[in-house]
């Protein structure tokens, strides 16, 4: 029994030691392997300690000026090593296990940012902040995000009273059909038709706003969806991610096909920026965008 307690203590202390290895000064040279991480790092005030970013890290503007190490799926091992990083921060999405192992075999410290869903973001930021020695900043940032998320929750709660209670006042538009909330679809790409399904931050945002994602219950996060299914499920509101292209042109053909659907008929098709795509502080902005459209 004593042995058990002892080993338990040793284990946890080892953990504590490990996680607060930067209890003093945050590391000087951080390499980020994902755009959302870059944003979070800047938001935590670590901007000038960032030694390298991916080619796709474009926010904030200062990030564009940082040295590049390649893509998200295919960063250059050499480029990372040449920057002599103190730590490399990567995500579960995209960055590969092999790459992480390789970095570790080259004696480079790595940290994997585990948050994938909206509700995981605040804790994810807290953990990252602890690991990088900026606990307070991280705490502040996560609190902000939590506040932001809660704000939406409150509003939508008003929107979604239980089935047989009187309609809400203020906030968003009334409940349609009495069950759940407004039926929403988020289109990531029109042709081939790719939508945001369950298990994505977008799906979380939709639920947060008290709406129903008609594409929930799919096996994969960003499934290739069937057009007739959209017609069958008749969404009230459609969001289309603006991306970097002229989405209005690209989505014209699709919208024509589903023109009978309530969302299109009533002109409730909204193009939103890609803030919602990045799991970073900006995601609040993205949710806000969507919320405004729903008003």
């Amino acid at each position: 029994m004593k042995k058990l307690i002892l080993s338990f203590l040793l284990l946890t202390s080892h953990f504590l030691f490990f996680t607060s290895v930067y209890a003093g000064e945050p590391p000087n040279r951080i390499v980020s392997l994902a755009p959302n991480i870059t944003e979070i790092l800047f938001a935590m005030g670590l901007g000038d300690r960032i030694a390298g970013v991916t080619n796709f890290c474009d926010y904030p503007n200062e990030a564009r000026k940082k040295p590049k190490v390649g893509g998200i799926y295919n960063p250059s091992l050499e480029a990372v090593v040449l920057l002599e990083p103190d730590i490399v921060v990567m995500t579960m999405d995209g960055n590969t296990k092999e790459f992480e192992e390789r970095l570790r075999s080259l004696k480079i410290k790595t940290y994997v940012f585990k948050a994938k869903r909206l509700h995981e973001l605040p804790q994810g930021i807290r953990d990252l902040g602890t690991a990088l020695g900026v606990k307070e900043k991280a705490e502040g940032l996560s609190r902000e995000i939590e506040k932001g998320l809660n704000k939406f929750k409150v509003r939508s709660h008003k929107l979604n009273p239980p089935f047989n209670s009187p309609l809400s006042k203020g906030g968003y538009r009334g409940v349609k059909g009495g069950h759940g909330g407004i039926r929403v679809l988020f289109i990531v790409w029109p042709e081939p038709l790719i939508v945001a399904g369950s298990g994505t931050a977008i799906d979380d945002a939709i639920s947060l706003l008290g709406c129903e994602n008609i594409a929930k219950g799919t096996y994969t996060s960003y499934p290739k969806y069937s057009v007739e299914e959209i017609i069958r499920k008749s969404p009230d509101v459609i969001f289309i991610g603006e991306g970097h292209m002229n989405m209005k042109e690209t989505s014209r053909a699709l919208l024509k096909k589903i023109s009978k659907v309530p969302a299109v008929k009533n002109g409730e098709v909204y193009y939103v920026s890609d803030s919602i795509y990045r799991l970073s502080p900006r995601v609040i902005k993205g949710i806000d965008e969507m919320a405004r459209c729903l008003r």
Partner: protein
Amino acid sequence: MSKIKISMLILVLVLIVSASLFVLPKVINPFQMDTVERNILFSIRFPRVIVAFFMGMALGVSGAVLQGILRNPLADPYILGISSGASLLAVAGILSGIYFFGKFTIPLVAFIGASSVSVLVGFFGWKKGRLWPERLLLAGVGLSFLFHAVLMLLMSVSTDERLGRIMFWIYGDLSTADWSLIPVASVFIISGISISLSRAKALNALILGDELAHSLGFSVRKERLLLFVSISLMTAASVSLGGIIGFIGLLVPHVMRFLIGADNRFLVPASALGGGTLLCMADLIGKSILSPMEIPAGIVTAIIGSPYFLYLLGRRDVLSA
């Protein structure tokens, strides 16, 4: 005459290797390196070049041997389904997230996949006590289609994160090459090449037809089986090292045949040299052209390979087998 051509090829190889080690994507002066550069040179660039060379050798020789035993100029390990079987298993491995053997997991799984498919193809191609070229080819193509379909199915239901990993594995990603896989893989590849070289005369005879080969004193059954096994070993090792790289097995033997003739005693080593050089070059291009982003070597070989292949089809004197 051929000696000159071979020397030139060796020269090209030396140039490419030097460029990969010391020049691209960033110059490293071997006489004035700091620790970081030394680290990069020995831990990253060196193993990568070696992996590329060994894979290229394996694929070149496999192509030459396969074209001989199937008596078909369009044969390449890809066509026999070995590559798609390996991909299928590797992709399943990546999707399932298993990681029992750490970084050796996916290579091991790929190796098992490649070997299993070889056995499967061999099984279907076996009748009345020996391997038949036509049956091998049909079995290979058929299985290849099947695996490909299942592979597409798996990919269509996989999440983004996994998909990215899968794509890069499938297209021949050498970027995480390190020393750990090289010893085992090189043993398989060197064995495969040695076996092929030792049976080169038999391979020549097999090209003439089973009956003539028999008349010239070869056990057709034994030789074909032995050569098939050597191809399987080499291809499986190559796939486990760095995924699927197409066109090398198809093109390199053709080009070498044009340069030095079809006698396998010379064609086999020449294809090894040519394949190794070609893959080193493809990898060099892939890691330099859009630096720091890396294009998988398999994509580079496909981009260079297809037009060159079509060009070869136009030249009747080259498509000689």
